[in-house]
């Protein structure tokens, strides 16, 4: 048989059938017709920020915590845990598909409370996932395959930008319920209840457990109670996304209140957890996905199917971050250090909110900036319009997503004044 000697390949395009005519266009590549994908709206902000040479530039895009010097913060409990792990010289054998047992157990305890009935009865199945994204994706895949109800996931309006493509790729359809009220920069409680009351039965409703992303607007406990009631009435399947436990108020129990309340009220929820922010383990990809089942027997069945879903995606999850998290959660000394450090991060955010609001007042802004203080968690939905955001970026090198969301974590005592200046300039 003749061997092709030349390195240059000439595809015999003339022989391709008409239906594959697309292959004949560009440079005989399989990908000639492929469009450039649009940059990710959130991560794309960081890319643009990096290219900017303005010394006063601020990255208020991605939600990664920064200390008051604007530097990434590696928690000391993490460093201590790493030292302990390093000294143990463990092997690197594959984890089971569901992940590290010490991690998944303590992950569930953190969410539900150590003495929760749901844990004692063994009716939860918690698997280790690739942080929050991986958890949501597994959840979406699971719903797509097994949920008998409508394959609609109802997201609050607005929600984290990546929720929609994740669930779409998992095979679900997306719908929304009213949530954010732009006129108050607060919670549209009546609108939410109204919309939720009309959601078809057995649909999936996504709730942000605390520190709503992107708005920072959370329901109050009394409001959560009413939401629980109407969700129960409508027989909806609840999917909680908890990416900021501890990070919102500084108190891990307080931030898990809604999740625990719903479970107590009998909702058998789905839950995604992330340890990216509250343990600063972003790049280690530490997360959990939980299904609260009817009983332990059902949990076993669900677990077996989750494994079948996970195996063809990445086989089994990464060890490093889960080991760090498990060490922290299961070592009392480290656990209390962690609680302190989470509180410290949350409190710095709260301080920056107060300083930003004060700064805007000082600049002479006549607008109401109360929402900057009332909103909670890493993000602040400023209320800035896209044109104002564009100006803030262009004229002040302040980078944020065009929905007006800023990551308070990127604000420091050194730059909060500059930020107030910029916001005032584009809104006056």
């Amino acid at each position, binding site marked *: 048989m*003749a*061997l*092709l000697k030349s390195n*240059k*390949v000439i595809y015999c395009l003339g022989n391709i059938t008409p239906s*594959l005519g697309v292959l004949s266009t560009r*440079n*005989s*590549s*399989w*990908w000639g017709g*492929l469009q450039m*994908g649009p940059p*990710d709206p959130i*991560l794309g902000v960081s890319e643009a920020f990096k290219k900017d040479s303005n010394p006063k530039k601020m990255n208020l895009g991605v939600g*990664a915590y920064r200390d008051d010097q604007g530097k*990434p913060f*590696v928690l000391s409990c993490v460093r201590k845990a*790493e030292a302990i792990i*390093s000294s143990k010289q463990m*092997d*690197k*054998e*594959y*984890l*089971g*598909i569901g992940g590290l047992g010490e991690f998944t157990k303590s992950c569930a305890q953190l969410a539900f409370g150590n003495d929760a009935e749901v844990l004692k009865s063994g009716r939860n199945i918690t698997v280790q996932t*690739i*942080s929050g*994204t*991986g958890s949501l*994706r597994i959840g979406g895949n699971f719903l797509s395959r097994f*949920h008998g*109800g409508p394959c609609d996931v109802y997201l609050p309006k607005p929600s984290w930008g990546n929720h929609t*493509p994740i669930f779409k790729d998992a095979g679900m359809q997306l719908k929304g319920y009213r949530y954010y009220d732009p006129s108050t920069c607060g919670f549209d409680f009546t609108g939410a209840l109204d919309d939720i009351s009309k959601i078809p039965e*057995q649909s999936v409703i996504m709730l942000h457990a605390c520190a709503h992303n992107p708005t920072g607007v959370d329901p109050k406990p009394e409001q959560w109670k009413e939401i629980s009631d109407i969700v129960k009435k409508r027989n909806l399947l609840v999917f909680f996304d908890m990416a900021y436990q501890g990070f919102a108020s500084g108190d891990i129990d307080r931030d898990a209140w809604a999740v625990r309340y719903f479970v107590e009220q009998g909702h*058998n929820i789905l839950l995604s957890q992330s340890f*990216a922010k509250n343990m*600063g383990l972003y*790049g280690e*990809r530490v997360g959990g996905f939980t299904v609260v*089942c*009817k009983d332990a027997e*059902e949990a*076993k*069945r669900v677990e*077996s*199917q989750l*494994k*079948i879903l996970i*195996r*063809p*995606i*990445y*086989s*089994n999850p*990464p*060890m*490093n*971050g889960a080991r760090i998290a498990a060490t922290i959660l299961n070592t009392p000394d480290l656990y209390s250090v962690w609680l302190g450090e989470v509180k410290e991060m949350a409190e710095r955010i709260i301080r920056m909110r107060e300083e930003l609001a004060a700064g805007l007042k000082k600049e002479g802004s006549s607008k109401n900036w109360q929402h900057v203080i009332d909103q909670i968690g890493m993000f602040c939905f400023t209320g800035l319009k896209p044109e104002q955001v564009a100006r803030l970026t262009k004229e002040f090198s302040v980078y944020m997503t065009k929905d007006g969301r800023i990551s308070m974590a990127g604000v420091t005592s050194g730059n909060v004044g500059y930020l107030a200046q910029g916001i005032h300039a584009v809104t006056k």
Partner: protein
Amino acid sequence: MSVFSEVALAAPVAVFKLSQDFNNDQFPNKVNLGVGAYRTDEGKPWVLPVVKKVEKVIVHDDSLNHEYLPILGLPEFRSSASKIALGEDSPAIQEKRVGAVQCLGGTGALKMGAEFLRRFYNGNNNTKTPVYVSSPTWENHNAVFANAGFDDVRPYKYWDAANRGLDLAGFLGDLESCPAHSIFVLHACAHNPTGTDPTQEQWQLIAEVMMRRQLFVFFDSAYQGFASGNLDKDAWAVRYFVSMGFEMFCAQSFSKNFGLYNERVGNLTIVARDADNLKRVLSQMEKIVRTTWSNPPSQGARIVAVTLTSPELFSEWKDNVKTMADRVLLMRAQLKAKLQALGTAGTWDHITEQIGMFSFTGLNPKQVEYMVKERHIYLMASGRINMCGLTSKNIDYVAESIHETVTNVQ
């Protein structure tokens, strides 16, 4: 009434069930020849000395943090990993038409490649494009491509059970008769589970047909360095195909050759026609990554990148890899010798002709069952054994067991 009351109990993945059964077995001389992970002669997992060294450096480096990696992964990892596959002086790399996506292990790399191909190859969202996997193949190949949305995942002839070798005529026949633009998953070296690789001449024949019929080349490279002990030798097929001008994917795993199993270190190397095509491909890969895991885990990639980019560490790593490969070769030689000495029926040349971690012994399901139940030696129903499970202490017992099994069970 639960929403999940209809969810059936799924069967466990066979290879993990095997390990579970092994763990539960109380027999003192039990042997685990199941899961594909390297073991030392003491039967223990082996964290490579170079990995221990690099990990120490990382844990003491206060300038490092745990920030998100870019969506496509750690740049130094991606480029150095691709260089390992394609060669330091690869013309394709010099022509700037090679890119990569850091993924979660080899599985993750296959997944990303599969998702991309389903969306963008041979039309848009063409779920009907046939995907061919070898018969037999790693059991997860089927699920990876099926779950990525491909409706038609089929076997191509590969293993000739009667002759215990490659069914080249069958393989080439499938290449000639398959629908145009079919995707073929090729094992770069150390075929799993048979340990039987095409020779260089055979690869050339395979490449010729694939080029002529415009079939898509998707290499699965999970054992580079592990097969022969030599990285370049084990990458010959991949590099040959690149030199032939294919646009192709190569899913790389660093689980075995770096012993980084649980850190999930993989790389999808992409060879495109030119830089512009590459750029567009990578931009679409980002979107797929973003909805699956957002960005990959940093620890394992860091270890590999630090190792590959330091001449001394790279050299040390190659030695570590050779250590593993050499032990496997030794066990192969000894097992064959012992079976021959015992006069075990049949020919056992395939034990040393096959390459890599696995050997397709030729034991049939009944014989396998006998081995497991009566001899407490755990191997896959296909007759696949992991050579790494053999040690100087258990090799006699295993050889005797095979002998007894072949003699008493047909």
